[in-house]
């Protein structure tokens, strides 16, 4: 019995000696998380191709770079700024709001407003004109003009 206890005690001490701190493994960012960032970037080489759908080997490397940065705790804005610093602002899907880039944000809404105004005026001009209430000075109507009398009768009917 004593011998068994000694064996158990020895094994337990050895187990404690070998025990090391265990920490939960941080999972790598998923493809969805990577693509959520990649979608906001363009391939620096291929024109007009978002980074999340670009099929080239270089794009795959850039997506892995995004995964690495995400795993290091970088947020989306930091990663986008890094890409802009490395490859130029043209890789951003949303141009930075500075300099002439402001035109991209101002011109479309202005053009839309102008278009709405033009449409509004066009529709207005298509509406049936409302005849103004005009006082008819009957003293000026020549009695003898049969043609004018007939026109007057027609106008009264339409009103």
């Amino acid at each position, binding site marked *: 019995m004593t011998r068994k206890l000694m064996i158990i005690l020895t094994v337990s001490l050895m187990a404690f000696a070998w025990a090391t701190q265990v920490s939960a493994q941080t999972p790598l960012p998923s493809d969805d998380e990577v693509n959520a960032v990649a979608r906001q970037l363009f391939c620096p*080489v291929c024109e007009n191709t978002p980074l999340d759908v670009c099929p080239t*080997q270089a794009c795959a490397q850039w997506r892995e770079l995004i995964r690495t940065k995400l795993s290091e705790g970088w947020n989306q804005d930091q990663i986008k700024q890094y890409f802009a610093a*490395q490859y130029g602002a043209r890789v951003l899907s949303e141009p930075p709001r500075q300099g002439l880039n402001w035109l991209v944000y101002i011109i479309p809404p*202005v053009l839309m407003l102008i278009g709405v105004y033009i449409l509004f005026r066009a529709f207005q001009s298509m509406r049936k004109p409302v005849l103004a209430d005009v006082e008819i000075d009957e003293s000026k109507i020549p009695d003898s*003009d049969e043609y*004018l009398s007939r026109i007057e009768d027609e106008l009264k009917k339409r009103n």
Partner: protein
Amino acid sequence: MTESNTAPVTGAGISKGAPRRGVPIWAQIIVWVALLGLLTIVAFGLRRTQQGTVQVGDIIPDFTLTFFDGYLFQGKSEVKLSELRGKVVVMNFWASWCKPCEQEAAELEAAFRSYEKGGQVVFIGADYVDTEPEARGYLKKFDITYPNGPDLGTRISQMFRIKGVPETYFIDQNGKLVYAQIGPFASEAEIHAIIDPLIKK
């Protein structure tokens, strides 16, 4: 028959003259000025895209290239083009994802080593839109020892208006472009054929 001295009237005694409506003059001016401004910007942009790469005879604008860790030029980790006046500069744009670049990597390194002792020719490599681990792998794979660095923000490649990689630009001792190689070199002899006349002057 009495004459009327009022405004012209129709037979029914109804006055003419409804107010004329249209776009105000100030609005028209604003629209036309804005349109002309937009067209000017588009014209400038188109002109730039039509320019092509820098032309032989152009003075290359000054730039600074910071090298990858481990690369130095005269003890410094960066180089400024203006500091290289008096030397022939070979500026090579490459990328690790560029297969044609691999075709000329060995030729460029061999040419660099042949001119290194003379000190009259400087080779510089600019890594174009690449990732650092892959770029370093490329440099190690081809044992490239002349200074190389990333073209951050594509600023330098935009100065040269490159269309792709590989492209190599030869700048003479006065900072003027004397030759542009679009595409890879087929042999080391091609590189010597461009540089040798420049250093013999």
